[in-house]
C-alpha cells in the first residue's frame, strides 16, 4: 500500500508580524532617516511578510554611537557576572519563544520547520547559555589574566541560518563586554527584529545590541565605520575579500566565516547506511544553503556501484514542499537570486558534461524551489566541483587511494569542512589530520555545538566561532 502522509502544518498563529519594522537603535525601534524600506518575502509562496527599514549612513552613525556609549558607560563596566545574567535571561526567553521564532524563521527563510524547531532554535538558546557562563570567567580562558573588551563590534550575517548566525555573533561579543551593531541579511531580517524585542523584554541596557536592517550598502557602511573596533562577517568569500581589504591599515580586528566546497570522503569500509544518511544531511540539510555543506562527495571507486543506488533511493524519499509542514525535509530556496545562481551552476554542470539526476519531485507553483540534484561523472575541472553552489546539489567524484582522496579534498581554495566515513579508526585519524579544513566530521556530518569551534582554512575565512576559541576574536 502507499502510506500517504497527510499535510501536518505547524500553526502560523504563534507569529504576530507587524506591517513594518524600524531599526533597533539604542533600545528603541526607530525609522530609517531616509525613510527607505525593503520588503521581506516568504520564499515558499512569494507573499509579503513585512516591510523593514533600510539603514543608511546616518542610521549607522546613530547605531555605532549608541553602541559606543553603551560600551563605555555601562556594558564594559558591568561585572562579568551581571553581563552573564543578562545573557542567561536572553537564552531563557529564546527558549520560551522558540516555537514562535522557529515558525517565523521558516516563513522568512524557507527552511523546514523540522530544522528550525529541532536544530536552529535549540542551538540558538544553547549558544547564549554557553557564552553567558563565560562572562565572569574570562580570566580563565587562556587569553591573558584580564582580557578586555574591544569596544563596538560590527557584525554582518547571512540568510542561511539567520537567528543562529545572530547568536554566534552576539553571544560571545556580549559575554566579553563588547556592544554590537548587527546587520541581518536583506532577505531574512525578521527573526533578528524579534530578537531586538527579546532584548527589550530582557531589559538589556539600551545600545548594547543594535539591529540595522538593510542591504549590502548598509553592511558596507557599517564595517567601514571609523568608530568600529571589531568586524565579524559570515557570508560569501567575495564580500569577505572586500571587507578584508576595507579594514586593511586600520586597528579593526576581523573574523570572517566564508564559503566552502566541503569534501565528504566515503571509504569502501564505511558503515554504508549511515554514510548515505551523512551524505544526505551533508548536502540537503537546509536546502544545501550551508557554507560547510558536503557538496563534493568523494567515493572510493570500489563501492561507487553499491553506494549510488542506495543514495538515490534515499534522496527519492526526501519530502520537498511547504516549509511549515512538519514532514518536510527540503524547503524553499531562500530567494529568486539564489535560485538563479543554482540554476546557472547546474546548467553549467550539464553543459560541461556531468550527468544530472533528480528524483521525481513535484515543485510547488509559487515560490522558489529546486529539486534535490546529484551530478555524477564529475571531474575536478567542472564548475560544479569547484564553485560553491549553495543549493541542494551534490557533485560525485571518485578516488582510488586515501592519498588521492585527501589530495582531491584539499584541491580547492576553500577549507571549511570535510567528512570522512570509514570504520577504521587509524584511517579516519590519518585522513582527518591531512584535511585542510576547519571542521572534520568523521562518521557524521553537519553537527554543531556551542562548545565546538567552527571556522575555515584558506579562503573559507579566519577566526573561530564557538567554544573557548570564539572568545578570542572579542578580547584584546
Amino acid at each position: 500500500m502507499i502510506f500517504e502522509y497527510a499535510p501536518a502544518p505547524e500553526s502560523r498563529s504563534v507569529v504576530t508580524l507587524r506591517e513594518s519594522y524600524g531599526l533597533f537603535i539604542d533600545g528603541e525601534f526607530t525609522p530609517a532617516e531616509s525613510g527607505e524600506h525593503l520588503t521581506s518575502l516568504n520564499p515558499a509562496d512569494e507573499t509579503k511578510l513585512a516591510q523593514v527599514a533600510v539603514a543608511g549612513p546616518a542610521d549607522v552613525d546613530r547605531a555605532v554611537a549608541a553602541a559606543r556609549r553603551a560600551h563605555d558607560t555601562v556594558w564594559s563596566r558591568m561585572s562579568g557576572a551581571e553581563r552573564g545574567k543578562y545573557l542567561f535571561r536572553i537564552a531563557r526567553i529564546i527558549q520560551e519563544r522558540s516555537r514562535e521564532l522557529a515558525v517565523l524563521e521558516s516563513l522568512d527563510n524557507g527552511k523546514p520547520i523540522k530544522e528550525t524547531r529541532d536544530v536552529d532554535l535549540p542551538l540558538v538558546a544553547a549558544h547564549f547559555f554557553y557564552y553567558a557562563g563565560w562572562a565572569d570567567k574570562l580570566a580563565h580562558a587562556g587569553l591573558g589574566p584580564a582580557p578586555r573588551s574591544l569596544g563596538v563590534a560590527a557584525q554582518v550575517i547571512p540568510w542561511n541560518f539567520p537567528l543562529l548566525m545572530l547568536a554566534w555573533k552576539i553571544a560571545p561579543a556580549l559575554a566579553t563586554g563588547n556592544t554590537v551593531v548587527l546587520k541581518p541579511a536583506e532577505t531574512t531580517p525578521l527573526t533578528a527584529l524579534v530578537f531586538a524585542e527579546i532584548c527589550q523584554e530582557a531589559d538589556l541596557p539600551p545600545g548594547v545590541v543594535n539591529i540595522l536592517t538593510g542591504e549590502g550598502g548598509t553592511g558596507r557602511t557599517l564595517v567601514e565605520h571609523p568608530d568600529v573596533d571589531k568586524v565579524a562577517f559570515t557570508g560569501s568569500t567575495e564580500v569577505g575579500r572586500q571587507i578584508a581589504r576595507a579594514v586593511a591599515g586600520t586597528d579593526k580586528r576581523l573574523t570572517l566565516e566564508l564559503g566552502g566546497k566541503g569534501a565528504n570522503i566515503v571509504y569502501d569500509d564505511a558503515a554504508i547506511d549511515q554514510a548515505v544518511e551523512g551524505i544526505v544531511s551533508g548536502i540537503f540539510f537546509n536546502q544545501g544553503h550551508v557554507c560547510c555543506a558536503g557538496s563534493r562527495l568523494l567515493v572510493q571507486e570500489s563501492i561507487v556501484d553499491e553506494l549510488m543506488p542506495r543514495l538515490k533511493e534515499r534522496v527519492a524519499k526526501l519530502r520537498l514542499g511547504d516549509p511549515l509542514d512538519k514532514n518536510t525535509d527540503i524547503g524553499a530556496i531562500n530567494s529568486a537570486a539564489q535560485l538563479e545562481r543554482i540554476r546557472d551552476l547546474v546548467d553549467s554542470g550539464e553543459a560541461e558534461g556531468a550527468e544530472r539526476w533528480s528524483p521525481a519531485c513535484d515543485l510547488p507553483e509559487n515560490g522558489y524551489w529546486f529539486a534535490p540534484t546529484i551530478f555524477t561523472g564529475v571531474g575536478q575541472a567542472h564548475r560544479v566541483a569547484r564553485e560553491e553552489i549553495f543549493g541542494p546539489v551534490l557533485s560525485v567524484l571518485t578516488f582510488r587511494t586515501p592519498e588521492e582522496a585527501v589530495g582531491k579534498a584539499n584541491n580547492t581554495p576553500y577549507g571549511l569542512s570535510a567528512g570522512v566515513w570509514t570504520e577504521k579508526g587509524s584511517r579516519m585519524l590519518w585522513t582527518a589530520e591531512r584535511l585542510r579544513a576547519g571542521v572534520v566530521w568523521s562518521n557524521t556530518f553537519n553537527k554543531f555545538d556551542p562548545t565546538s569551534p567552527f571556522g575555515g582554512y584558506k579562503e573559507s575565512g579566519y577566526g573561530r566561532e564557538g567554544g573557548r576559541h570564539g572568545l578570542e576574536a572579542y578580547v584584546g
Partner: protein
Amino acid sequence: MAERRGGKKADKADKADKGGAAQAARTPAVPARLAVRKTYKLYLGGAFPRSESGRSYAVTSTDGTHLANAALASRKDARDAVAAARKAFSGWSGRTAYNRGQILYRVAEVLEGRRDQFVARAASAQGLTRVRAEEVVSAAIDRWVYYAGWTDKVAQVLGGANPVSGPYYNHSAPEPTGVVVVFAPQNAPLLGLTSVVAPVIATGNTAVVVSSEAAPLAAVDLAEVLATSDLPGGVVNLLTGRVPELGPHLAAHADVNALDLTGTGEDATAFEEAAAQTLTRVLRRGPDADGGEEAWLDPDPGTSRMTPFLETKTVWHPIGV
C-alpha cells in the same frame, strides 16, 4: 662583514679595519695573510644561491662603514622561496612536535657555539656596545630554547576536547597554517628576527623571511646556523633585499597562507590589502616593530606570535558500540 685579520678579536679587527681602510687609501699595505671574505647569499630550499638576478647591494654598519655585499633578491627569488617553503611544509608539519623541538634546541646549541661571531657582528654592524651585543645574542639563543620548548605544548594549551551536547567525541587542535612570509623587523636584525621566525616554524609552518634591508648579515649568518642544525631545507628561506620590491609579490602570492608585517613600515596597508585577495592571514605591525633589539627582550612572549599562524581544526566522531 668586514675582512678579518688572523688572531684578532672581531671588535679589534673592526677598529683596525676602519683605520686600515683610511690608511689604505694612502699607503697600500701588504697583509701577512689575506683574509677570506664571505659572500652573503640567499638561503633557499636549504641551499645558498645568489640572487637569480645577479644583483647585490652594499651593506654598511650603522656608522657607514662598508661591511659586505648582500644578495639583492628579486621577484623570482621570492617566487622560488615560496615554492621551497611549500615543498617543505608537509614534511616539517608532519614531523612530531618533539622532533621539531629537538631541532629548534639544536639551533640554540649551534648558535651558542658561534656566540662570539654573533656578538662581534652585533657590535660591528649595529654599533651595539659589547655588553648590549652579548645581551642581544644571549636573548636570541634563549629564544630558540624557548620556542623549542613550545613545540609540543602549544597544542595542549590551545586545543582540547570540547564537551558537546551529544554522543560525540569532539576535539580541537591547532595546526600550522602553511607558508608564512615574515617581514623581519628592520632595526632588530638578530633578536628581532629570531623572535619572529622561531615561533612561525616552531608550530610547523615554513617561512619565507625577508630580512632587514639595512642589516641583513646577521640573518645570513643565522641561516648558516639553521643549515647546520638539522633543520630541513626549505623550512626557513631567507631573502635579503628590499621590502618594497619583494613585498607586493609575496603579499599577493596565492600560495602564501600568512604574512607577518612587522618589518613592512609604510607598505603594511598595501600588503594587507593585497593579502585580502586570497584571504591570507595577516599579523599587523605591533608596537615592537620599530623598537630595535631592545623591544624584543621580554623572555616570555607567550603564544602571541604563534596563534596568528595557527588554524584550529575541530574533529567530530560518534561514540558508540
